[in-house]
């Protein structure tokens, strides 16, 4: 289980959407009592940026490319300042050509480089899906193991900022169904800081999803980065009555729902999936075996979702542990609408998760 960081989610999720206000580079080092590690105040965005700086500094084979990663500073300001630090060859602005530059990343990876390709949002990644699916994910197998594609493809996902359908979809579950790639979704500061390193070292393609409403998540991290894995799920809150399974943007909502329920003496355990492919079945089943009830939270559409896959696995592997039907809280099956009240209604909310939990706890077994 990874170490917890203290964090707060910025209330107005819209402000962080694209290009955050100038962020301070100085880390405020807090005076540290002897055993506590020195900490730094940071955000999800800055933690991602630090992770890039680390891999770029450490490994000359690493380079970043994508639309507006350089001069603009990254459409979500993740790469702000990296061009100045690492130069044009390693922080490459690309034309609007998702398929070409993602494919070029694959080619460079075949030749032994370690590209990080940034696609602004998962919605636009559909223009590169052919390259990701038919080349990146497939070349190793189709070549009988001769080829290796060690690249990282980063993209923003998620809704909640009134950006309407073409900018708000959560398609990570689709990617999680593709053999040949690893899919990761940091939801905490330490994962934003820690997951890129092992992803770059992975000999196979890794798709990393950054949730758009997490960029301004702020809190503290140890000055010396904590090593995290890209294999396992993490229990973010221990509980005894019910298991919430969430990831990325859903984690904060699941934790909020657990708070609501604590006041009603319902103790919820909260699992952060972290890795969407391959799924960490062991952590999920161990929790279900303890609590016997499950709510799965997914910002994607319910039909054919990651929530559906997890639900099926629980039924396959832990059916006799269940005391109540599995509950799923997913997005409504509608292209995400612009109007605030409709968008909120389309997305899973903490209150929906709590209501599902009450149903499960109330159900008898």
């Amino acid at each position, binding site marked *: 289980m990874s170490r917890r960081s203290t964090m707060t989610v910025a209330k107005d999720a*819209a402000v962080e*959407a*694209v*290009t955050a206000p*100038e962020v301070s580079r100085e880390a405020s080092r807090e005076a540290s009592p002897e055993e506590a590690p020195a900490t730094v105040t940071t955000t999800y965005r800055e933690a991602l940026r630090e992770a890039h700086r680390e891999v770029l500094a450490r490994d000359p084979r690493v380079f970043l490319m994508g*639309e*507006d990663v350089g*001069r*603009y*500073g990254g*459409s979500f300001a993740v790469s702000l300042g990296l061009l100045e630090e690492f130069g044009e060859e390693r922080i490459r*602005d690309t*034309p*609007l*050509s*998702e*398929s*070409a530059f993602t494919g070029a990343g694959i080619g460079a990876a075949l030749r032994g480089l370690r590209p990080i390709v940034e696609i602004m949002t998962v*919605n*636009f990644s559909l*223009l590169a899906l052919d390259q990701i699916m038919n080349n990146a994910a497939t070349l190793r197998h189709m070549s009988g193991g001769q080829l290796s594609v060690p690249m990282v493809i980063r993209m923003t996902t998620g809704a909640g*900022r*009134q*950006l*309407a*359908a*073409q*900018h708000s979809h959560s398609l990570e579950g689709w990617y999680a169904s593709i053999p040949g790639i690893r899919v990761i979704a940091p939801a905490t500061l330490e994962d934003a800081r820690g997951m890129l390193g092992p992803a770059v070292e992975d000999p196979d393609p890794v798709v990393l999803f950054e949730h758009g409403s997490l960029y301004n998540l702020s809190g503290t991290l140890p000055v010396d980065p904590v090593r995290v894995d890209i294999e396992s799920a993490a229990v973010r809150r221990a509980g005894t009555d019910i298991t919430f399974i969430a990831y990325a943007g859903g984690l904060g909502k699941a934790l909020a729902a657990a708070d609501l329920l604590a006041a009603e003496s319902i103790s919820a355990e909260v699992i952060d999936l972290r890795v969407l492919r391959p799924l960490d079945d062991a952590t999920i089943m161990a929790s279900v075996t303890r609590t016997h009830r499950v709510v799965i939270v997914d910002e994607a*559409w*319910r*039909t054919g979702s990651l929530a559906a896959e997890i639900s099926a696995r629980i039924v396959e592997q832990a059916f006799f542990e269940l005391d109540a039907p599995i*509950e*799923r*809280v*997913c*997005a*409504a*099956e*509608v*292209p995400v*609408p*612009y*109007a*605030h*009240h*409709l968008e909120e*209604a*389309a997305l*899973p909310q903490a209150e*929906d998760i709590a*209501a*599902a939990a009450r149903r499960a706890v109330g159900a008898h077994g």
Partner: protein
Amino acid sequence: MTRELFLELFTGLLREMIRIRRFEEKCVELYSATKIRGFLHLCIGEEAVAVGVVGALSEDDAVVSTYREHGHALARGVPMPSIMAEMFGKATGCSGGRGGSMHLFDASRRFYGGNAIVAGGMPVAVGLALADHLSDDRAVTVCLFGDGAFAEGEFHESANLAALWNLPVLFCCENNRYAMGTALAREHASTDLAMRAAAYGMVAWTVDGMDVIAVREATDRALEYVRDSGKPCFLELRTYRFRAHSMYDPDRYRDKSEIATWKKSDPIPALEAKLVSDGLMTPAEVERWRAGVEAEVDAEIAAAVESADAAPLEPVEDLLRHVTTEAADGVALLAGGRST
């Protein structure tokens, strides 16, 4: 043309540019007041393209646009109150509050949006033109897009298809020299976009996109050519956005002096100056005329804001409407939705 006709044409173009400019300036205010949310992309500086191109179309023609489409929609005659209400997320909006600023639609005016996937509208424009071609219609589909979109495969595939099949598409590339923060020369190895479009076998030429009269004349010629030949045509309209890419963009990638230089060719004062130099109005008449127009336009904008404010929200119960056809909607086939 007689003096009166010139005066009428020029002041008509000027009035529409002023209308769009002031509408968008109001949008900035409303965005700060959080009445408008999400992404907001302005065409301030590029009004000559919206007015010159879209104003030249006939009712039967179709328009396919991008997320930077307020000017296109207004010039097409989409009613201002329905645009404003859309940006307020209201039920009376031209897309029922589901689209917002980037997704204005008005099927009755053949205004097919409002596409926020860069280059995503282009193949659709080809299909609209294919249908017109197959039904022996003389309508032209105008497809507006940016210099950034020109780099996408979807542009190149669409251009080839339209040329190969002789389809009545007028491709209008609004070259404002930037795709977000990426300057033209950093996105294209060869920046002569019209020349590259011509390589697909289309008639193509470059137009001063800051000169509304030049844009209008070029569009008239292009439309005539497309209607007569049934073949596609390409206009590269050289223009500039005075504002940042969107309300989130801190505009770090451009020199202030570059913006200032382009502002010298602001299409609105440029046409006012022409009215004077052509002897159609005296400077004092221009002043008076402009004050009158601004008052009218401001009243129209104020009324649009007021009605948008007062308009109802779409009921939450209707969340799942318009996903598939209304007939099936009653049963809400795939209404699965949330966990209840």
